[in-house]
């Protein structure tokens, strides 16, 4: 029987949750790296026991951990993230130039084909790659240096490169997203990049044709249809049918179109999930009700999923990297909250139950479906 392994990054350590394919009884291991912020953990698609974790601390900086046994044991690998050349400046919150400074790794994305190759999205925004299992890191500096970098500005949480999508049908195509710069795409394995933000709108950007400056919170794709992308923008849920060349809004009947995560059902490319949040000034669900919204039509028409989720007095948030799906026949959907709960649905969102309730604030969730 298949097995599910959930990798949970929290403000105070990492946790690994495991279950058989029924997804009813869960074992919880952790905290790993207790007391450290774990922004993200992820396993290699070609070697699921090869895991990478981003461990960081305001005091002691960045550490990258690697496991070769599915998270039972870990070893620190390379933590030297040095920008290529003279880093120059980006734009600070007040519009003044600010030097590029490495702070932490927000997201680790292992290669689809090689367990020793892994990408790291960092704050201040840049993309790094290791081809030796995380020992050494090189910046793909064509992104930061392609021309608009000096106009990128941090979002409220910092200027992080938070999303890395590897296109399974075009090995040299990668999408990334940065708060608050936008989406960028390379078609030549990271040498050159283009902003892909046409159609996005922001009340803070008067120029309707602005190339960059958008606070993209998350993008997602279905691996069977990688030219279709879904986006949770700061406000607005968006869709692209042309690999990011243009975007249109699909917020439809959502109660609010502000939020952070967005994900796609494992077997239905037009079934997508978001968690509406009241506003950018109030980072909690509307009316104190935690509701996942599902669209089975690729957007515009949304239904609230509430069964098993708290429908009163709930004021948690769900962060951008804290939702994931498994690939069992009945698709499992999972998300973690800033209140430390990890919720699971084994039936594509119809019914939910907490796996754990009292972890530290959850920053990220990744799910592995194991044979």
């Amino acid at each position, binding site marked *: 029987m298949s097995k599910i392994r959930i990798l949970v990054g929290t403000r105070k350590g990492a946790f690994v949750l495991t279950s058989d394919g029924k997804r009813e009884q869960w074992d919880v291991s952790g905290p790993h790296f207790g*007391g*450290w912020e774990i922004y993200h953990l992820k396993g290699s698609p070609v070697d699921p026991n090869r895991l990478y974790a981003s461990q960081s601390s*305001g*005091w*002691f*900086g*960045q550490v990258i951990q690697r496991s070769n046994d599915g998270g039972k044991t870990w070893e*620190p690998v390379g*933590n*030297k993230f040095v920008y290529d050349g003279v880093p120059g400046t980006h734009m600070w919150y007040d519009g003044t130039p600010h030097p590029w400074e490495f702070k932490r790794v927000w997201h680790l994305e292992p290669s689809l084909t090689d367990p020793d190759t892994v990408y790291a999205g960092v704050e201040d925004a840049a993309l790094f790659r290791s081809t030796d299992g995380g020992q050494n890191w090189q910046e793909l500096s064509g992104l930061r240096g392609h021309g608009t970098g000096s106009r990128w500005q941090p979002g409220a949480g910092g200027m992080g490169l938070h999303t890395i999508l590897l296109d399974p049908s075009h090995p040299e195509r990668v999408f990334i997203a940065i708060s608050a710069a936008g989406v960028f795409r390379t078609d030549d394995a990271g040498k050159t990049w283009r902003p892909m933000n046409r159609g996005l709108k922001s009340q803070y950007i008067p120029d309707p044709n602005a190339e960059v400056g958008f606070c993209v919170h998350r993008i997602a794709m279905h691996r069977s249809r990688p030219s279709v992308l879904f986006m949770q923008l700061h406000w607005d849920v968006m869709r692209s049918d042309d690999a990011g060349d243009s975007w249109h809004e699909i917020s439809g009947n959502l109660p609010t179109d502000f939020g952070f995560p967005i994900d796609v059902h494992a077997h239905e490319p037009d079934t997508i999930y978001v968690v509406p949040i009241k506003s950018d000034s109030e980072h909690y669900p509307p009316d104190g009700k935690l509701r996942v919204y599902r669209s089975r039509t690729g957007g515009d028409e949304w239904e609230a999923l509430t069964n098993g989720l708290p429908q009163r007095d709930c004021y948690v948030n769900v962060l951008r990297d804290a939702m994931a799906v498994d690939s069992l026949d009945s698709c499992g959907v999972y998300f973690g909250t800033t209140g430390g709960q990890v919720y699971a649905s084994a039936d594509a969102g119809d019914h939910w139950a907490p796996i754990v309730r009292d972890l530290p604030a959850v920053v990220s969730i990744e799910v592995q479906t194991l044979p």
Partner: protein
Amino acid sequence: MIRVILPFHLRTLARVDGEVELDVEGPVTQRSVLNALEARYPVLCGTVRDHVTQQRRGFVRFFACEQDLSHELPDAPLPDAVAMGAEPFLVVGAIAGG
């Protein structure tokens, strides 16, 4: 032998218990002690001082003999008591408030 006391998280990272004892060649300074520390425990590279600039990280402090040495020059001699192993060199995660 130079004695170094690391904060909890760095002891965990380096997988050591209690004090670290280091052989330091030449003058005993912050730089020579930290060089010896990082040579013994490469996992600590970048956690006490920046990889490139070699500057002390902003929220890390150095103490010895009841003195705050955080702002001393990296090549200034450490107190004789540290150099002779009578007193430890402390790496501390800065704490604000009480």
